[in-house]
């Protein structure tokens, strides 16, 4: 599989180039910050009228990852919907598509700051999910370990011979993984932002997403 292998709290994991995290021993795929329905929410708020294709684009990439990994458990790590009304406003085809992806799988919606509380779609709704030795939650808590979280949409810039390349990135150290945003309409927070300083150890790495994931020492 096209991914970066590492282990957290003794659990062997794979950071996929798509931005999804795979836990082979559990057949578990984790994705974060899908922000489904972002275009609808922006339109509803009078905040611009974006091309309404981001939900289908995000779902089709997720479908590819599920086909590839044959995962039996899926954890959506929060901010799966741009807000709760956006979840309700998904078009029928999109709701059916999600149901089809859920069929035969354990599916967990972790709540995020954009989508607190349950949505009217199949799957389990949880504030956070402990699966020893790991814990899945939306926003990282300082001092925790074995923690998988999202929320920050980290991205990293790498200066190579002659050019700088910026990609969404996993931030990884001995305590935690902060996942990149998986949704199509998502921006990123630079990994050298102050927000990451209290969370990541000095020896943390960033894994840039893309056709082939690349690991580098976390640029600060």
């Amino acid at each position, binding site marked *: 599989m096209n991914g970066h292998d590492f282990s957290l709290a003794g659990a062997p994991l794979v950071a996929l180039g798509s931005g999804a995290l795979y836990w082979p021993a559990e057949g578990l795929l984790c994705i974060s910050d899908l922000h489904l329905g972002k275009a609808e929410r922006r339109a509803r708020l009078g905040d611009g009228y974006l091309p*309404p294709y981001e939900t*289908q684009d995000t779902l089709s990439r997720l479908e590819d990852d599920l086909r590839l990994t044959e995962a039996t458990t899926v954890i959506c790590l929060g901010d799966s919907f741009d807000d709760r009304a956006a979840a309700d406003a998904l078009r029928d085809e999109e709701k059916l598509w999600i149901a089809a992806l859920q069929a035969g799988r354990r599916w967990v919606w972790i709540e995020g700051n954009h989508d607190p509380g349950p949505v009217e779609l199949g799957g389990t709704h949880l504030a956070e999910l402990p699966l020893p030795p790991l814990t899945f939650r939306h926003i990282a808590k300082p001092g925790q370990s074995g923690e998988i979280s999202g929320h920050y949409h980290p991205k990293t810039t790498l200066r*190579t011979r*002659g050019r700088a390349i910026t990609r969404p990135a996993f931030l990884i150290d001995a305590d935690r993984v902060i996942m990149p945003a998986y949704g199509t309409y998502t*921006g*990123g*927070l630079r990994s050298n932002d102050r927000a990451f300083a209290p969370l990541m150890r000095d020896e943390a790495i960033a894994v840039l997403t893309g*056709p082939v994931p690349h690991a*580098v020492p976390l640029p600060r």
Partner: protein
Amino acid sequence: MTTLPPLFIDWFAARGWHIHPHQQAMLDRADAPAQLLIAPTGGGKTLAGFLPTLVDLATTDHDGLHTLYISPLKALAADIKRNLTTPVSEMGLPIRIDDRTGDTPSSRKKRQRADPPHILLTTPESLALLTSYEDAHRTFAGLKRVVIDEIHALAESKRGDQLMLALSRLQALCPNLRRVGLSATVEDPAAIARLLACHPDPCDILQADPGPEPDIAMLTTEERPPWAGGGAAYAIPAVLDQVRRHRTTLIFHNTRAQAEIFFHNLWLANEESLPIGIHHGSLDRVQRERVEAAMQQGLLRAIVCTGSLDLGIDWGDVDLVIQVGAPKNVKRLVQRIGRANHNYNAPSKALLVPANRFEVVECQAALQAVRDHDLDGEPRGRGPQDVLCQHILIRACSGPFSASDLYAEVTTAGGYADLTRDEFDACLNFCATGGYALRAYDQWQRLKQTDGLWHLRDPRSARLIRMNIGTIQDTDLLKVRMQRSRGGKPLGEVEEAFAASLTPGDTFLIGGEIVRYEGLREMTVEVSRDRGRQPKIAVFGGTKFATSTQLSQRILSLLNGGDWSSLPAHTADWLRLQAEMSRLPKSGELLIESFPHEGREHACIYGFAGRNAQQTLGLILTKRMEELGLHPLGFVSTDYATLIWGLDPLTDPGPLFELSALRDGLDRWLAGNQLMKRTFRASATIAGLIQRNTPSAKKSGRQATFSSDILYDTLAKYDPDHLLLQITRTEAMRGLIDFGRIEEMITRIDGRIDLLRLPRVTPFAAPLFLEHGRMPVEGAAQERLLAEETERLMAAAGLST
């Protein structure tokens, strides 16, 4: 003939002035529906534009707004306010004059809407904003005249189209509105007149006496210009010497970066501490205003500047204009020269300072063109649809409208006179629903139709539309400030891409100061003062102009004419060296040099097609090279050449340059490239799909915003016929892509390609290594590089992957 009222005759006489013939002519034609005046700087052009207004206001009672004056620059509006106040107060005329720009305090703006002055001085963007208010009809009630200053400058960009759309609105509110345009010397006055006219009414053209020939030469220096680079540091002593010998010197640069570097070097060499200032568009307003004030009071001996001073601001006693770097465009050079000497009858004095040896050739070619009165320019295109989309949104802010009325209105504007109803409806549909093939959440659409009239679904959205009025694409500029702990003084702006390349501790130049990058806080670049004398990073971007077709042809003729006697010996020697080591590019064939350098393969293609077309050539060729497995990594273009680097050498260029192959491949490669994305970003912003400014921008920071590239990719994938993609293609073809000049080049070389394999960099290729604006190629080489770099970094950090 309209005679001046006695009051005016006395005022002219008291100053020892006579009314210029063109000023009298403008007075005589005060009732023309549209009138274009073409006059050189210093010809009393502004007064000519205002005389009919002043006479009318002096002789009749008028309530409310009488004349609107539009200038491309805020500073110009402020300047005209000062200049106009003098005759008005000296003649004791009962005329209220006020200016209104983005810098005007909101309390004053509010007052102006409720109780407008007789003469309001403003910019196209501020005018568009004024027309967006629901009380626009009251603000403009009674408006009789509009004067557009420096219309030639506005005509060069979308600002001109936006202005004319705003005027079409005003004309509907005030049917008897008279239009006056004031222009510097241009190559095609009829094109400007077409833009200014309220169609189908005509627009007359009046040409003033052009004045005496300018006194213009190339600055000769003891020091030789360098092989490459744009700083012209070698000329500092000679330029300082000229500053010493003149009262006031304007030192023009083509980019902000060059102006900053030159200014820095000038100060290091300025042992007598001559008062010298810097002025460019990226500087903080307070700093700019300080320089402008000092200049008007005659406190400065020289001012280092960019295009922000191109226009007709009265800088007082300028007696020398220095142009640093090749002028790229003869028309602009002539207009800049006109900045020196405001005496109508004295010749303007100007010096050209080539920044490197290639520019010596270009400057020489430009001098000949000025002497031959051979001005250049590109024909004006049709009015762009992204600007129309913004206009429709602005119209919706001011109240409900009927589509037919608005269509009739916009087709009176020059650029839109031949707009079809279908094209208009496509724009309206985009504004209302997004215009997507997939109709989703229609209940939230932006415009709704009720009883045949279109209106905003949510009136609150007017705020967002108003916050984003304008067509100037200073996109992705970040403010630069001193750290809060050091007072937080604003210094100016830098491009986001430049800011992203900084790491704390890096030093760069802004406003002539060296500052140290400390960090990014809420979209602001925080810096501290640095005591160093040498900035580590000296460059941030600025406008880049393409050398015009006419000037490029003159350069090729000069290279091959055999007579280099007009060139300094060092430059002639350099040309000889190029001829010896390689070959001189000719008009009738395409020279390509191929050589290794620092572990990479390079191909240098001398197309002389101008920067944008050379850029496109780089895109097409690298795409094709990628397909052939030559691993191109990137390219950079100048006005005369494109340099491509990669991992493998180019050995057979023939198939790459067949016009049919180039044209066939155009659509294929067009879709995925960076230039399209850049063009898309500009058009999507203007059309209102994405917002530069949002009320919540400050709070949410970067994470909430995502790159417009994602929208482009999404549309290209799911909605390839979307209006904005059509606009992007049209724009790119005539702007950044400039495919026309590639076709012109291919026809000119007619299959004659001359590939030379050389052992090292050639004299002509060397400058390209120092060019900025390198374009990366997305491809296999990129993954190869990432793998190399990550391995190196991990190894260096003692980590294993």
